């Protein structure tokens, strides 16, 4: 066993979660490697330290502040309706792996039923464009809220777009400043919708998805902050 593999298994070892097939070579490696021995010791101590972190005291002023906000009718930071902790069974049919995963064409007005079942309406109301860089005077599409989810292959960002113009629009999506690739070029007919998706290995809840579009000589791009799930 090499050090990289041993480090991968460090927590499992400290928690006694290594099966015999891995435990034997792991311990053999520790016997030979002072660096990994030290790491195992440190991780075990950190594990204990984290679990034993004492509860900090709470000031009485917290409760006063809670009631003050309630009585002031302050809106909470989180919108009243937002995504569930995880997407429901009617989640978008996003496939894992690959740069851009799915492009779903939908009807002119109605979105697919699965979208409604997954809270699509709330998605739309929660749309947030974080930066706009558009060269064209008019934008020939509307976008719903971007979403983000984690898959084994990495982070997947998606955004629905609808061509609101009378000519086809060519779209592509990407993740700014990421190590993921650009999405495929997708042509959306007038009045049609598509879901643009892109995956990235950048593991952050703050990823943004950039939508680039082109229609004739006009073009532009917009970045959106996704509604995220953990």
């Amino acid at each position, binding site marked *: 066993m090499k050090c990289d593999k041993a*480090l*991968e*298994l*460090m*927590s*499992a070892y400290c928690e006694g979660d290594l099966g015999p097939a891995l435990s034997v070579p792991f311990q053999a490696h520790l016997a030979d490697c002072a660096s990994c021995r030290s*790491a195992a010791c*440190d*991780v075990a*101590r*950190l*594990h*204990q*330290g*984290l*679990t034993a*972190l*004492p*509860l*900090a*005291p*709470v*000031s*009485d*002023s*917290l*409760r*006063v*502040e*809670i*009631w*003050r*906000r*309630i*009585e002031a009718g*302050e809106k*909470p*930071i*989180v919108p*009243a309706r*937002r995504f569930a*902790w*995880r*997407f429901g069974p009617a989640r978008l049919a996003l496939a894992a792996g690959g740069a851009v995963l799915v492009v779903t064409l939908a009807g002119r007005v109605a979105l697919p039923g699965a979208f409604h079942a997954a809270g699509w309406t709330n998605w739309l109301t929660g749309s947030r464009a974080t930066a706009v860089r558009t060269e064209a005077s008019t934008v020939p599409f509307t976008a719903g809220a971007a979403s983000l*989810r*984690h898959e*084994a292959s990495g982070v997947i960002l998606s955004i629905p777009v609808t061509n609101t113009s009378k000519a086809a629009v060519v779209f592509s999506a990407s993740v700014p400043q990421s190590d993921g690739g650009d999405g495929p070029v997708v042509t959306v007919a007038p009045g049609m919708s598509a879901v643009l998706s892109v995956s990235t290995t950048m*593991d*952050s*809840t*703050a990823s943004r998805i950039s939508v680039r579009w082109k229609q004739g000589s006009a073009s532009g791009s917009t970045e959106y*902050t996704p509604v*995220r*799930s*953990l």
Partner: protein
Amino acid sequence: MAPTADQPPKTGSERSSEPDDMLLIQRTREGDRSSFDRLIRRHERRVYNLAYRLCGNPDDAADVAADAFVRVYNSLASFRGDASFLTWIYRITTNIYLDARKRKRARPQVSLDELVEMDDSAITRQYEDHAPLPTEVAELNERARALQGAVSRLPDYQRVMVVMYHVEGKSYEEIAAAAGLPIGTVKSRLNRARLALRELLKDQMELF
């Protein structure tokens, strides 16, 4: 008007005779605000501590915790009780923290150990500490402070994992279900987080 009851939280046998969370929620829905005050008293310390481990400083933690309770109060009608009240408010607290992080991203985080620049000198940033500080407790506090400072420097996705596991006490399976991640991914992220903490604390490991 806020309820004025200020009895200390009850424990042990006293607690066993107290109404459970669902009953207090039901009473709150019916307009009994003192029931919600009891819910606050029952859970504020855990919620605040979750927020504190996530935020890394008491001011932001109090802000996040207060928002979490406001959010809960305004959403009680939709609480079905599928998960426990504490699980629900933990989830809301984490969401609020992550949203707050997004809004404050442009503003740099202040480390607990960071120096405050003064006109003529630099002094260590001072924070109010309500805990007693006998010698043996001081060492524990120093360890906790070092750990908290390191946790605060983890990336969000690692910090949330660490806090869910070590502060909320959730199992790998529960975290995987909540985050929509495979268990193996949760385990590997936590392992990487612990190795990252070790690196951040390499000069302070004698505390542990």
